[in-house]
């Protein structure tokens, strides 16, 4: 008949390997091939430049609202880099770089944010859900995918991305709880970029960390320096390996920062001060990774310059490609992909649109 503390089987950990100056903790440093390191670097840089270009396109009115990822490159890439092609992924809407790494064509982002549904086509062979704008809703899908993998005895895992804000939605907890109960092979990657539009992390929850929310559902939780790609990779790899070998789900909180706007419709000066942003700019995930690679003699200033040029050309090609496809969409296609077979009542509505269009054309010709 005591009063005593209950010993819980899981704890909440913190991990950092590469600090903001580029110093590495040799004991914790993962052994990644030079090839992978350089590939990651290229992807990060390209992701940053593409993001800048998208912002530009939006400002010029060539696409609509768009959510920049600046600052979160390591946080996304470190995680997806641990996946196999056959693994599955469900994302929120700020995982542009994660999606590109997984094979989503860059031009499709321009199409999508340019208002063309075509931009969210999921190509055959890519096992990733399209973006999910309803905050917190996509994690459950990954859990279901993980349960299906287990049922099929497939050796795959599902990874799911979401923000700090999303951890307040009930669906986040239902997802973790199902994953715990069914020991689904799922890796939950929280992109804690400190803000949910104007709501700072401290107002989102009274919990000290987001990682500790794993404790509510009987699974390990770890907070990592999200601007440290080595730490993100290490934690994700551990979680992916555990999930793949039947060890169940993990929650990883990537502690990072949204250096840019929530979306292009947002004005952060309304709610946060420039100093905080400055502080975080000093923790940039790319520059510290470049120091690390230079120290390893894998990268030179000239190398970076050449890469920048290559990337610029590539992005220009992508923009041209996309804009070519963004002319004169056929409105009638909006009736496609609602059902496998179009029901008669919908067919009537489609015919109405076709009739209207040809009427409009006739009038335009007459007028």
């Amino acid at each position, binding site marked *: 008949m005591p009063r005593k503390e209950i010993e819980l089987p899981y704890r909440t950990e913190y991990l950092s390997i590469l600090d903001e100056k580029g110093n590495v903790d040799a004991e914790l440093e993962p052994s990644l091939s030079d090839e992978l390191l350089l590939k990651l670097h290229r992807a990060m840089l390209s992701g940053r430049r593409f993001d800048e270009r998208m912002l530009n396109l939006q400002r010029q009115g060539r696409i609509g609202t768009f959510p920049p990822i600046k600052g979160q490159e390591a946080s996304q890439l470190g995680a997806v880099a641990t996946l196999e092609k056959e693994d599955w992924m469900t994302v929120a809407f700020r995982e542009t770089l994660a999606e590109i790494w997984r094979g989503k064509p860059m031009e499709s982002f321009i199409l999508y944010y340019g208002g063309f549904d075509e931009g969210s086509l999921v190509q055959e062979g890519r096992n990733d859900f399209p973006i999910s704008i309803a905050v917190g809703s996509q*994690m459950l899908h990954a859990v279901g995918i993980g349960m*299906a993998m287990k049922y099929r005895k497939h050796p795959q895992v599902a990874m799911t991305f979401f923000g700090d804000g999303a951890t307040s939605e009930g669906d986040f907890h239902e997802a973790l709880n199902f994953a715990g109960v069914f020991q689904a092979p799922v890796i939950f990657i929280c992109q804690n970029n400190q803000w949910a539009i104007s709501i700072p992390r401290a107002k989102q929850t009274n919990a000290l960390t987001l990682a500790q929310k794993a404790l509510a559902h009987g699974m390990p939780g770890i907070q990592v320096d999200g601007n440290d790609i080595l730490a993100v990779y290490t934690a994700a790899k551990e979680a992916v390996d555990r999930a793949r070998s039947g060890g169940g789900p993990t929650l990883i909180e990537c502690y990072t920062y949204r250096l840019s706007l929530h979306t292009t419709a947002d004005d952060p000066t309304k709610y946060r001060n420039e100093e905080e942003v400055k502080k975080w700019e000093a923790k940039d995930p790319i520059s510290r990774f470049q120091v690390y690679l230079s120290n390893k003699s894998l990268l030179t200033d000239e190398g970076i310059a050449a890469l920048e040029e290559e990337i610029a050309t590539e992005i220009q090609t992508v923009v041209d490609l996309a804009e070519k496809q963004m002319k004169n969409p056929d409105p009638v296609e909006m009736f496609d992909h609602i*059902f496998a077979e179009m029901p008669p009542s919908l067919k009537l509505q489609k015919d109405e649109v076709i009739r209207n269009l040809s009427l409009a054309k006739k009038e335009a010709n007459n007028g």
Partner: protein
Amino acid sequence: MAKMTMVQALNLAMQQEMEKDDRVIIMGEDVAVDGGVFRVTDKLITQFGEERVIDTPLAESGIIGTAIGMAAYGLHPILEIQFSGFSYYIFHQLEAHASRLRHRSRGRFHVPLVVRAPYGGGVRALEHHSESREIYYAHTPGVKMVIPSGPRNARALLISAIRDPDPVVFFEPKALYRAFREEVPEEEEVMEIGVPQKVREGSDVTIISYGAMMPVTLEAVEELQESDQVDAEVFDLLTISPFDDTAIAESVQKTGRAVIVHEAPRSFGPAAEIIARLIEKSFYYLEAPIERVTGYDIVYPLFARENAYMPDVERVKQAVRKTLAV
């Protein structure tokens, strides 16, 4: 052929489909060990194991959210929501994902899931256990909304729903679960989703109904034939949305009069859409206003008053007489 209740017929549909197709799984609260609170999934766990008949935590959004993932991965989950009155917990997932994933992925993924839920009143139940709110699903693009009215069509429609490549919300009129038995053929039988069935030929008036209101409607029709020599044509909607109104329109063009019967609240209810369609296609044939016999725009009362809420034979007869009086 065996005489079965609707509960047994639904159970048979799932059992046969699961035998045939290992993509089909069942999930929900109390569906496995307990066999469902109405026993619709009774003993399926014995045959198919807990890998395919899954008792979930008490979280409806969790159930549909994971089912969406499973469905996209290639399974055909049948979810049970314990009562339709709790189906609102799944609504955001149904609307944002189940109904849209095909569209959003441009056809790469689709979501072949069935949401089964007991619905409707008349069984002396607790609060939230008697509502009829099929409209929420009927008005949602990308979702099919089906309601059977007897053991045989329940079985056939459920098989079609399971095989349907798109999400189907399947409301089971719990008042009919064990109300009567019907011959249900052993061999598989399907029924096309989206097509109302003419269940009685007639020439004086067209009556359209579905679910637990079908027996009420048919009883009223028999009595009217007897007492008033009214020869009514009766349709069972079966699919609330999307439904093909061709046959109904033809019927009303023949009879010139129509009555619609449902349990759901009247305003913005299913009858309104049927009326709108009839006006579209059959306006010039109509000889009287179309009558609605429906539930009311109120919180469903506890069972001491539910008889006054529910459309009954008397109200149907009154409406038919009213439409024939002019």
